[in-house]
């Protein structure tokens, strides 16, 4: 058995360095990702399943988790759609300022999130430029879940754009042309040919934007208003518990967030693998 595994790993290859690369990968992944997460789980395990369950069903925690995951999913969903449109325009049309616009897509990556949060809060506050206009329509953005939603869309957008962009470049013009020669309208080509080809990348973008949104803290707390049960996100609740020296409570919420995120991302990845089933040669 051990010999067989050895053989598999030892197979000669034109691309050498497998052993070294795998060793480095495992070492690095352990150091940077797995050990901190294990420490978190270890700390949380002190609570026991019962303790974690109690934390999870605490009304304030439950409301925060629901808000965090619900808004993250919604923001990632909207980002995926608009990200696709933005990527399409950037890749398919040539217009003045295209490069500038292309570069602007990455800004949410580069900006300190607190800066983004303060800017958004100022803009959408009841006396802000946009906030005042929206308020006259009876829409309150800042210090409500809607404000959180906007902040999450802001931080997640680059992921949605950048993941589909290379795939749009890859789509062969001929595939669209052949669809037209077979009698398909432009809308049919879009729905039956182009979108299915982009779905795997859109799902990746969705997953990344979602993961980013769930973990987002800096930009949200400035615009959220942070009212318990209404606009208080789970990461903030963790910070509050920490400030109260309630380390067990904080790790409990963190462990729950970790588990939910992991399951969600796994589900998205499985869905993505299924949509890519045609690619396996």
């Amino acid at each position: 058995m051990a010999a067989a595994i050895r053989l598999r790993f030892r197979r000669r290859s034109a691309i050498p360095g497998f052993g070294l690369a795998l060793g480095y990968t495992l070492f690095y992944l352990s150091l940077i990702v797995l050990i901190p997460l294990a420490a978190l789980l270890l700390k949380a395990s002190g609570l026991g399943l019962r303790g974690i369950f109690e934390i999870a069903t605490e009304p304030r925690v439950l409301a925060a988790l629901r808000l965090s995951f619900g808004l993250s999913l919604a923001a990632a969903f909207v980002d995926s759609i608009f990200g696709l449109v933005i990527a399409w325009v950037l890749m398919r049309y040539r217009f003045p300022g295209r490069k500038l616009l292309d570069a602007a897509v990455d800004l949410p990556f580069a900006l300190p999130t607190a800066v983004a949060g303060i800017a958004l809060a100022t803009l959408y506050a009841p006396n802000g430029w946009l906030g005042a206009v929206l308020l006259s329509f009876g829409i309150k953005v800042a210090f409500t879940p809607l404000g959180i939603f906007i902040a999450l869309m802001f931080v997640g957008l680059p992921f949605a754009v950048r993941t589909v962009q290379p795939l749009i470049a890859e789509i062969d013009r001929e595939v669209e042309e052949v669809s037209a020669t077979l009698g398909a309208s432009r809308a049919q080509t879009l729905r039956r040919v182009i979108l299915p080809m982009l779905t795997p990348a859109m799902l990746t973008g969705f997953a990344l934007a979602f993961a980013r949104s769930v973990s987002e803290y800096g930009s949200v707390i400035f615009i959220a208003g942070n009212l318990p049960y209404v606009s208080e996100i789970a990461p903030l609740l963790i910070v509050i518990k920490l400030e109260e020296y309630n380390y067990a409570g904080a790790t409990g919420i963190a462990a729950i967030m970790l588990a939910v995120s992991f399951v969600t991302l796994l589900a998205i990845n499985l869905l993505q693998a299924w949509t890519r089933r045609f690619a396996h040669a």
Partner: protein
Amino acid sequence: MDIRIVDIAKDFGGTGALRGVSLDIRDGELIALLGPSGSGKTTLLRVIAGLEIPSAGQVLFANEDATNLPVQHRRIGFVFQHYALFRHMTVFDNIAYGLRVRPRAEQPSRQEIGQRVEALLDLVQLPGIEKRYPAHLSGGQRQRVALARALAVEPRVLLLDEPLGALDAKVRKDLRRWLRELHDRTGHTTVFVTHDQDEALELADRVAILNEGRVEQIGTPDEVYDTPASPFVMAFVGDTTSMPIELRDGQATFAGKRLMADIIGSVEGQTQLYLRPGDAVLVKPDPDDLAGTVLGVRRTATGRRVHVRLDPTATEIEIEAAASRNVSVGEAVGVRILKGRVFSAA
């Protein structure tokens, strides 16, 4: 379906432009558009398909003006050189695509679609691969699936862009014969683009030779090979070699020596004589024949190709010799020109 192309022009400001192309394609005909890259042959095919809008001229489908008919409504079948299969769809879904995008009222039932796809897969000799994805198919199989997909919509004309261009030599030969048989069986009016003269001559009923956006000649393979209309056509459809001669009253001379050759075409004065490698023979050096020196010898499938420099000039020609003839480089040989062709400068 008869197709008439009348004075089509298309200007990109680059290569592949068309400068006034007219062509009549008869119902049920298999016609080849032959030309070097940049000659406009693919552009012409795309104009017929409606994928390219001409800047001038008309395309008539069965005597009806189709110049501004959108691609979707032309009822054509187009096969791209690299197949352009939908890689996220199975072979079945690829072939059924054209039927499923029809308006609901014209759409065949599920069962009919299933039967149709099966019949088409039988026709292209790929039964039982419905559930596979394009990534699992070989080049030749993809080509045939693309063809089945184009045939599914019962096109009025089948347009093939370098249909065999991306395949290796062996598959190409087999598929060439198979395409011809398929055409004879189904009788679709078919236009295909190629840069390979063998493919055009072997496959097509008629060949249109394009050069720099114009049709140089249209004719049967025999016509374009045996009676080329221009030096370009002659050189493009087969091996051609040429030498400068002087022609007076039908009497040709080369470097002061009379040629006993059969000369087709009439030109007076200095001109260029074009000949196939088989139109000249190697003989023993003889004062009555041209003298030359062998510069190189290549073995071909049927014989030897001898590269000869004609004395006392720098003119070099290629001559076909029997495989049994031993020729060595540097050898002094006699050259007798049997026949050749001159073209009046147009």
